[in-house]
């Protein structure tokens, strides 16, 4: 088992094998990778490291996935480890559970995470509670693209965390950087609990996110948030695509002497509530920012936890910036209005800082 990033050569395979897919060799070649390539590398390296890991989903094989995350994997690993499924999200997620029972560690790709919903039943009523029901651990990762901003309309733009956040037994991960995406996905694959892994499609190929990653194998532990920027006036808790907008807002506000502490949750479930509370104890103010719709968003749980852990330190109401309570609309002006933006974060943080 190799424990470093895959090299550009084909040494690990047989000599007649097709070459390693180009997008998983950049780190070894000391080139910066995109968010998407970081995910490809994580998958590829975990599959090389552990032959119990395999991939299944719609068009992941021949095509390499709708976003080409697994491009070339089928040629390298063979069609039994990169399985093109019928259009049956429930069927192949259930099958992943069955393979996990038999000792495999499947990674399920949802073509768009919006289409996880037909698998809602099997995820919540079978995978998530397997351990509790006495059916054993469930090392299954379900990953796929989420997020709005691409004119994808109602069914190619959803964030799915809150459909599952209320399900004990699941973990939910939502990275915002290439480094984290790779390290968190590796941690997710090695985890014995079912993990939903959300990949914001707006980050996939964002040039600003290209990053040189360590050659060594590394994981980013689940359940620990990341301090994006330290600050003293307002704690801003966020994740995914909004991390970059919040960082931008912090930058802008710094020029006006308002200091934001920006926290990137990385893992939504379990929630790193102690770290959030720790920050709130320093700043006394909390803003939660999510791209997901408002009512029933994760802000609520964070507010409850902070009430439980750090109420006495609050100098202002806990507030939130979110998308509208609506289906994600298609047309540009509607989608832009629907989504929370940097200006909203700035306005909210300003309000709190002068509260």
């Amino acid at each position, binding site marked *: 088992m190799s424990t470093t990033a895959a090299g550009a050569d084909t040494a690990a395979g047989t000599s007649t094998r097709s070459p390693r897919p180009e997008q998983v060799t950049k780190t070894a070649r000391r080139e910066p990778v995109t968010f998407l390539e970081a995910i490809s590398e994580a998958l590829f390296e975990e599959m090389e490291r552990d032959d119990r890991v395999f991939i299944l989903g*719609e*068009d992941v094989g*021949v*095509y390499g996935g*709708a976003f080409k995350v697994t491009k070339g994997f089928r040629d390298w690993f063979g069609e039994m480890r990169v399985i*093109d*499924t*019928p*259009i*049956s999200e*429930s*069927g192949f997620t259930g099958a992943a559970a069955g393979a996990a029972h038999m000792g495999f560690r499947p990674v399920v790709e949802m*073509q768009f995470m*919006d*289409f996880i*919903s*037909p698998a809602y039943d099997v995820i919540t009523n079978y995978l998530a509670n397997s351990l509790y029901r006495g059916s054993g651990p469930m090392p299954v990762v379900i990953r796929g693209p989420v997020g709005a901003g*691409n*004119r*994808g*309309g*109602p*069914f*190619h733009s959803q964030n799915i965390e809150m459909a599952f956040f209320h399900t004990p037994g699941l973990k939910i991960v939502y990275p915002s950087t290439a480094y984290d995406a790779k390290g968190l996905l590796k941690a997710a694959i090695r985890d014995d609990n079912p993990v939903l892994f959300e990949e914001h499609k707006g980050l996939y190929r964002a040039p600003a996110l290209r990053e040189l990653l360590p050659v060594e194998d590394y994981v980013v532990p689940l359940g620990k948030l990341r301090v994006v920027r330290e600050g003293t006036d307002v704690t801003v808790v966020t994740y995914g695509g909004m991390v970059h907008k919040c960082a931008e807002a912090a930058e802008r506000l710094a020029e006006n002497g308002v200091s934001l502490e920006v926290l990137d949750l990385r893992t939504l479930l379990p929630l790193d509530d102690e770290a959030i509370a720790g920050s709130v104890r320093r700043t006394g103010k909390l803003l939660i920012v999510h791209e997901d719709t408002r009512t029933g968003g994760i802000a609520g749980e964070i507010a409850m936890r902070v009430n439980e852990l750090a109420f006495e330190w609050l100098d202002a*109401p806990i*507030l939130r*910036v*979110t998308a*509208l*309570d*609506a*289906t994600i*609309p*298609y*047309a*540009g*002006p*509607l*989608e*832009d*209005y*629907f989504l*929370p933006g940097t*200006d*909203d*974060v700035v*306005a*909210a943080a*300003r*309000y709190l800082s002068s509260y």
Partner: protein
Amino acid sequence: MAAAGALVADLGRSDLHALYRTMVMVRTSEERLEILQKQGHLHGGLYRSLGQEAGPVGAAYALRPSADGKGDVLAMTVRATGACFVFGFTPLELFRQYLGRATGLTRGKEANLHCVDYARGFIGPNSPLGTMVQVMAGVTLAFRMRGEDRVGISFYGDGATSTGAWHEGITFASGQRCPLIVMVEANQWAFSTRTERFTRVKSFADKGIGYGISGESVDGNDPVAVYEVVARAAGRARAGEGTQLIELRTFRRLGHAQHDAMEYMDKAELAEWEAKDPIVRFRQRLLDEGWSDAGELDAIDREVYDRVAADAEQAMAEPLPAPAAALDGVYTDHVQRAPWTRRTPVDPRG
């Protein structure tokens, strides 16, 4: 819709021209959409039905659309634009949808064929495949409950038959003997996945046996053959014989959507199906059988081209929705306020 003076089946000259014209309208409209996309006016995906125009057109022509909300009802997909045109949908409406215009049927909230007009009897789908078989089961159950002489038709691709939604829909419909015609556009692909990679069924008509209902298979590139099969199925459905399943044998000649480079496609096979192009073939037949002449058909081509170009131009000139229109339409009885950070002064309350 069948006219007297039948030339083939019960179709007369004007019927045959209408079939031809509608197929041409589909292709011309989609070609126009491609141009608009290349010009950067489209933002969402673009899905074409190149080579599959005959099935939806022939099928819909066998039904009884109406503009008063009392005719047959169609559930289409992005590849069944032709059926929708038969039901009165126009290229103008199509462009508005793709361009997200405020004037569109969905006022920019949804895209493409995901649009509805109950008066004309078409119901666009949502994206999760299979759903509309369930919905159409209910639509046609309503016909049965009211004792109406109407039928419904639902289109999906072969890939969609794998979904639980499709199965539960056709199970419900067939069990309740709903007057529903379930069409399977067997274009041999689900995105990049070849039919034989996801099912061992050789003909999707066989799926009818598994539900105890009639299943038929027809050359999906022949509008007249499709017309005949669907007309008979509709007759059976109207006669109380319940749900009908029909496979259209065809081929998807372009990528799944415009962004799909189609590297997985066998070029020889593609050429084979290009030779079976439904429009070229039908045009030739119209000429060979003497049902039309080149002048007439050229005139149709031109008329359609001009109409489509004009419709595209009109749609382009129409406005996008106002941003704050995103706020309404969530509930029938309540409109949410603008986000607190966008009010003056900002105010986190309610």
